């Protein structure tokens, strides 16, 4: 169980987070509305040069199709660039450790993994990737996937904004997301991490003789820059195989709290961006309150066990509380970084983690979390809102059959890409091939792998053991569909909102900004999203709990 002081810790962190997010949100809105700013002097020349070189017409507004496909295609270009580096790292510079090239299937899986903001890793970075790969493949894609996520969310919000004529220009949004949002934020975060003890070097690993005379290699590299974007961008792909459990990636309680804060920052800010951008700040309420009520439910479930996650899998410097809290946060914002081994988690903590990944909006990955929450709001307005005695409307816009169709299709993607591959993994013998069983623990691991891939989360049990053609290709496909199918569908939904007739200022409308609505939203999400997967949880962590497991070590 959780103690009073720990509840206070969380509350304090969230208060600071909400205040910071509010201002970050204000800044993000200014950036994407292209309002003039004192920073223009610095950024405008750089950006204008980029637009000129890349032939971008900054005044061209894009419809949903053009926006969605520009995002998808540039991501594919970026994947190709990263794939080139992964597959040729042996001959490329910055490879002091002389690591060899990655296999085609690991490359396929990893470029999709990083480009889709999933960061599922079927390798241990410190023993696999050259410095160049860590920087110019991993960090590069972490920046672009984070930028893409913010852009598509902003584009969706534009669809709901009154008076929008288009969804904006993807290229301009993308450039500004890098130059004005991610690079500056990551710079601050990276310098903080450096000061707090995280390394950043290109000089190769240091071999030392320990106090007792043994030989040891200190695996330092460009870690601080990676940690900053992996947390701010809710990417989650660590420098090391052990991710943020590895001391050099997350050395102290301070860096741990800071990383939790960083991964919550943009997803929370985007809740506020919604209201600020559409000019109705109150409309951020269901999105923010809904997300954080669900987050609180996640936490409550994770903290049921007493004592909370002790022993194996837990880093001493973090302890059970901080490790469990991290696990909930990392799945709530679909970051996927870990500061402990998932094997060390109690089944309840894993149930909470599943909830975060099923919902994807608690507050979810930056960008996509907001998109999902808007989708849930529309679905709730449609089903439950009918009971207010009006045909459903959101922000004064009537919800049409086509909107509902898009929402239901987006809704359908997730169970489809989790359940089918899980089944295939067992039926084809791929699970058995890597030693994963069908019992409570094994099933949890497989279900978690595909849920994490589908939700673009990236935390997983299997890790390097899943570095086989089947698992790499299967998770690669799941990650790709889990990312782009909902984005394209939800941008289509946003596109349909442009120019829609609005009935505004009528007292008869359902008040989505009310707390009542937020509560109903949360209940709807639990019934429609979480319970859908209940039979599967029953075969995994729930079964494990009833069988007396307190973690996932052992059979």
């Amino acid at each position, binding site marked *: 169980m959780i103690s009073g002081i720990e509840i206070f*810790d969380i509350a304090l962190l969230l208060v600071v987070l909400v205040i910071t997010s509010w201002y970050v949100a204000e800044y993000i809105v200014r950036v994407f509305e292209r309002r003039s700013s004192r920073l223009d002097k610095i950024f405008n020349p750089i950006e204008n040069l*980029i637009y000129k070189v*890349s*032939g*971008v017409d900054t005044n061209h507004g894009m419809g949903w*199709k053009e926006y969605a*496909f*520009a995002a998808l*295609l*540039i991501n594919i*270009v*970026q994947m190709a*660039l990263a794939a080139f580096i992964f597959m040729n790292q042996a001959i490329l510079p910055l490879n002091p450790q002389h690591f060899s090239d990655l296999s085609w299937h690991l490359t396929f899986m990893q470029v999709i993994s990083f480009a889709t903001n999933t960061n599922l890793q079927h390798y241990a970075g410190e023993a696999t990737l050259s410095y160049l790969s860590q920087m*110019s493949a991993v*960090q590069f894609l972490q*920046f672009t996937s984070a930028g893409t996520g913010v852009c598509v969310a902003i584009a969706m919000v534009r669809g709901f904004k009154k008076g929008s004529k288009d969804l904006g220009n993807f*290229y301009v949004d*993308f450039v500004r997301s890098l130059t004005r949002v991610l*690079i500056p934020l*990551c*710079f601050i975060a*990276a*310098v903080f991490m*450096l*000061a707090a003890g995280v*390394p*950043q*070097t*290109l000089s190769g690993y*240091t071999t*030392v*003789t*320990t*106090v*007792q005379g043994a030989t*040891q290699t*200190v695996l*330092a590299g*460009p870690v*601080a*820059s990676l940690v900053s974007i992996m947390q701010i961008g809710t990417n989650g792909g660590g420098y090391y195989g*052990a991710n943020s*459990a590895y*001391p*050099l990636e997350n*050395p102290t*309680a301070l860096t*741990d*709290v800071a990383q939790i804060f960083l991964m919550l920052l943009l997803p929370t800010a985007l809740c506020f961006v919604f209201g600020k951008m559409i000019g109705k700040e109150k409309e951020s309420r269901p999105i923010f309150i809904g997300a954080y009520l669900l987050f609180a439910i996640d936490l409550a479930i994770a903290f049921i066990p007493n004592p909370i996650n002790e022993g*194996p*899998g*837990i*880093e*001493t*410097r973090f*302890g059970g*509380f*901080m490790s469990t809290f991290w696990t909930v946060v990392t799945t709530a914002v679909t970051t996927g970084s870990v500061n402990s081994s998932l*094997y*060390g988690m109690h089944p309840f903590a894993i149930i909470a983690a599943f909830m975060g990944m099923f919902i994807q909006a608690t507050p979810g990955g930056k960008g996509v979390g907001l998109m999902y929450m808007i989708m849930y709001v529309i679905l709730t307005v449609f089903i439950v809102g009918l009971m207010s005695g009006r045909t459903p409307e959101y922000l004064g816009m009537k919800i049409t059959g086509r909107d509902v169709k898009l929402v239901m299709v987006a809704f359908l993607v997730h169970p489809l890409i989790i359940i089918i591959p899980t089944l295939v993994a067992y039926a084809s013998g791929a699970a058995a091939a890597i030693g994963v069983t069908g019992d409570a623990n094994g099933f949890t691991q497989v279900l978690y792998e595909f849920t994490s891939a589908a939700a673009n989360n990236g935390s997983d049990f299997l890790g390097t053991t899943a570095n086989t053609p089947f698992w790499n290709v299967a998770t690669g496909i799941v990650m790709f569909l889990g990312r782009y199918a909902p984005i394209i569908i939800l941008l289509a939904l946003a596109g349909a909102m442009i120019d829609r007739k609005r009935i505004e200022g009528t007292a008869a409308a359902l008040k989505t900004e009310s707390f009542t609505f937020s509560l109903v939203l949360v209940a709807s999400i639990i019934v429609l999203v979480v319970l859908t997967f209940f039979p599967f949880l029953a075969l995994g962590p729930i079964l494990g709990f009833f069988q007396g497991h307190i973690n996932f070590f052992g059979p």
Partner: protein
Amino acid sequence: MSDKKSWASHLRPLIVLGIISLLIGGLFFPFLITGVGQAFFPHQANGDLVQLNGRTVGSYYIDNGFTSPVFFHARNESTCGCSGVDPDITPQQAYSQIPGISSATGITNSTLTSIVNDNEEGTFWIFGSPYVNVLNLNLILIREYPSVYTNYTK
């Protein structure tokens, strides 16, 4: 996309911007941070390396692999299931090792206890729970009791 424009004009931003984003996120930024790190935080940037008698013996944050009974030990790696290099133990774990160290070195229990207590770390204000860094404790012991430890360090 409008049909009026040529394919090339559609492809150009995709490819050029794709490459520019690689330059910004994949090279410029990590190089920038490397520069800042090496210039302003060289100790941290290079892995928080720790010296003993002028010799680099490891990283402060990486378990140094103590095995001798005269030292504090980190957790046994084979069953830890954690990062495997966790350099820290809880004060309670440290206390439980004190009698053994005391009998091996002759340093009194109370001295060892106060060393453990004085070197608790891990809390950031009210966050986190206290722990002690095994390497840190052992280096203190080596410095404080050079005569005892001279045989045990290489």
